[in-house]
């Protein structure tokens, strides 16, 4: 599923000979062989916008999700491995960020930039979405910390950092991957929401923006379903697919979940 969309993202632009906001055809046309997803009230090709809009989704998922996971790892590892006062502090910090309704925060931050790009958006999301990862990874590290191979490393005078990255990290790769996937999906959702309420990027096209436009231009009332259905569906599909992939991995990694 994800792959399908990924491919679509890459080859999509080739499938269409329009630019996302060109006025290519008649206005408000339902899907047809010529305009696969129909056209907007301005006569822009929805399919074109759609395929172009996919890219930012992945970009943000990658950067935002990646960043979140990274921060989460650093904090999680440190807290989990060092324990004690460091843990106390980091944990408290995490909880604070966790409790603050980051989205509301995101709104304000987003509003702060007058001209926004996808990259910036991704960064913001990354910086607000990490606590989940941090908590999860911390817990994992905790359980690993006391394993004998870690003790062994410690005794053999390995530096904490080295231990973390040579002993602990590899032993929870599977877990990290899953965390990343979750963050990836999460980032896409947040981005879509931001875009939708008009606090997303002020340039370029994204799935969220498409929905935003669709609603702004009364696609609902004019019954132009082809304008607002594809973007949302795509997001749901992508993120849903990611989650399910995750379950897959999960079942592989801890047999307990596996159905016999």
């Amino acid at each position, binding site marked *: 599923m994800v792959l399908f969309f990924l491919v679509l993202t890459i080859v999509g632009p080739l499938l269409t000979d329009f630019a996302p906001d060109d006025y290519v055809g008649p206005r408000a046309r339902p899907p047809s062989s010529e305009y696969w997803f129909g056209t907007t*009230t301005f006569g822009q090709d929805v399919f074109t916008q759609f395929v172009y809009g996919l890219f930012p989704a992945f970009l943000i998922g990658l950067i935002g999700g990646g960043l979140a996971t990274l921060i989460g790892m650093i904090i999680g590892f440190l807290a989990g491995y060092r324990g004690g006062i460091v843990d106390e502090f980091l944990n408290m910090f995490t909880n604070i960020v966790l409790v603050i309704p980051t989205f509301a925060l995101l709104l304000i931050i987003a509003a702060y930039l*007058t001209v926004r790009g996808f990259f910036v958006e991704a960064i913001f999301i990354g910086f607000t979405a990490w606590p989940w990862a941090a908590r999860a990874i911390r817990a994992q590290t905790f359980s690993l910390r006391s394993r004998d191979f870690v003790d062994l490393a410690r005794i053999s005078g390995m530096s904490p950092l080295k231990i973390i990255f040579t002993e602990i990290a590899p032993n929870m790769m599977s877990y990290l991957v899953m965390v990343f996937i979750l963050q990836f999906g999460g980032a896409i959702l947040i981005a879509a929401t931001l875009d939708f309420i008009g606090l997303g990027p*002020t340039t370029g096209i994204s799935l969220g923006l498409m929905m935003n436009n669709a609603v702004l231009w*009364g696609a609902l009332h*004019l019954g132009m379903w082809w304008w607002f259905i594809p973007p949302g569906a795509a997001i749901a599909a992508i993120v849903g697919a990611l989650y399910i992939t995750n379950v897959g991995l999960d079942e592989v990694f801890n047999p307990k979940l596996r159905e016999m």
Partner: protein
Amino acid sequence: MFKKITLLVLLIVFLFSGMAFAQVYERSETIYTTGTMWGPPSSWNPITPWAVATGTRGLCYESLFLYDPLTDEYTPWLAESGEWVSSNVYELKVRKGIRWSDGAMFTADDVKFTFELGKNYEGVFYSTMWKWLTDVEKVNDYTLKFHFSKALYQEWGNVMYTMMMVPNHIWKDRTEEEVTAGANENPVGSGAYLYESHGADRMVWVRNDKWWATDLLGLKPAPKRMVDLINASNNVSLGMVLKGELDLSNNFLPGVADLVNWGYVTTFYPEAPYMLSANTAFLFMNLTKKPMDDPAFRRAVSFAINVNQIVNIAYANLVEATDPTGLLPTWSKYIDKDVVEKLGFSYNPEQAKAILADAGYKDVDGDGFVEAPDGSKIELSIIVPFGWTDWMESIKIIAKGCQTVGINLKAEYPDFGGYTAKLYGGTFDMGINNFGSQVSNTPWTFYDWLFRTPVQAQMNNGNFSRYDNEKIFDLVVELDKTPIDDLAGMQEVISQIQEIQLTDMPAIPLWYNGLWSQVSNAVWTNWPSAAEDTPNYLPCTWNNYWEMGAVFMLCELELAK
């Protein structure tokens, strides 16, 4: 959890069910309007005109005169008559027999008081009037004399119908705070409607059956109630229009042309442009920056813009391209055809290129975009507020147009705040704006906004181009000093202004924003329209439009059979 709540509510309902239907509006007695309020009703204080709920000015509080732009006529309203008894003394007769909604009589004292609020409190928006108004003299209960240090006839004419009279006997005890920043709940006015209630998304007025105009002028608004809704979003109003739940919608609705054709709504004109024109959208260029400081460059831009495409695509023909002077149709008599003939412009890429070339702009580094004569690169951006979708579409087209003639112009959409900051602070390159070009009794308001002086760090409203030209400023003041009935005098000054304007082109008029007005005939009919057999007013609920005739519209509405 939720069940409990309902049960509780239901219980209370039972207790109160006595007053059940009292609060339900009879559709046939109610007019639903929208398009004015951008937020929940929050103020009924006519002294803070920008914040007031729809109808506060015009339906609740009233002005001395009404002015109808379509006929260019003043109608005595709270005033009975007014005339310049000398070059700088204006005598005003107050109409007898007018009562405030609390029963008190309306007299010269109220007028004097209202004017002097501006004298006493800086925070009153018309306080600056006292720079040229020296004294308001009460001759008797129904006569006043206004003495001027400098008689600005045009501006005075404007004041006559934009300034709302407030009751002296209620306001005189109020603090400056209350006057300049009070919400003035439960307003006591003289107008056709009384405050009934308001909610997060609406303002509800109920007809004042003791309205003075009913006895004195035989006017009676048809709808018993007026429910004005906030602009939740175009999309919501659109939905309501389609369902016939909205009688008059004064916001920009996408695809109105279709709605008209499908017979959901009617507009002032049955076909394009459908709407009357309300104001002029200008392309302001920041003259403090290169290369916008070069008249030739600006002129080139004016030829590079395909306004018709904007009209067709961004607006689906809901608007009209402007006259090169930018003057609204209602002011067409002030347009100097010869000047336009000589200096006018129209979409013509070739000519734009030519002008650029002649002025020494050529593409040196071969990136397809021209460099300035001094060889420096040109990279410009044009801004409109994010979310102002029609404008966003427009500047995309403008940017394209400029690029095709070799000007590297990008469209950008900052938030409203960023937009105003850039525009007012003079950090923008190009931008669209129309805040001050509203239809009024005189082109003076238009030019005063366009060529606002002096140019300073913050241009809070007007002359965003920062166009610094004493000559034109003087002409604007001269225009202001010309009596409103001296048409020739006005034309004379105005054509001089136009000559300079079109030569220097500090801002480029693009299109007339429509007086967005979609009406449904489902419940109410006899709406104003271009048709012969219908009334001919501005069908609009916006602030200041009631005084421009919209109040008559309410009186002439008829129930659909």
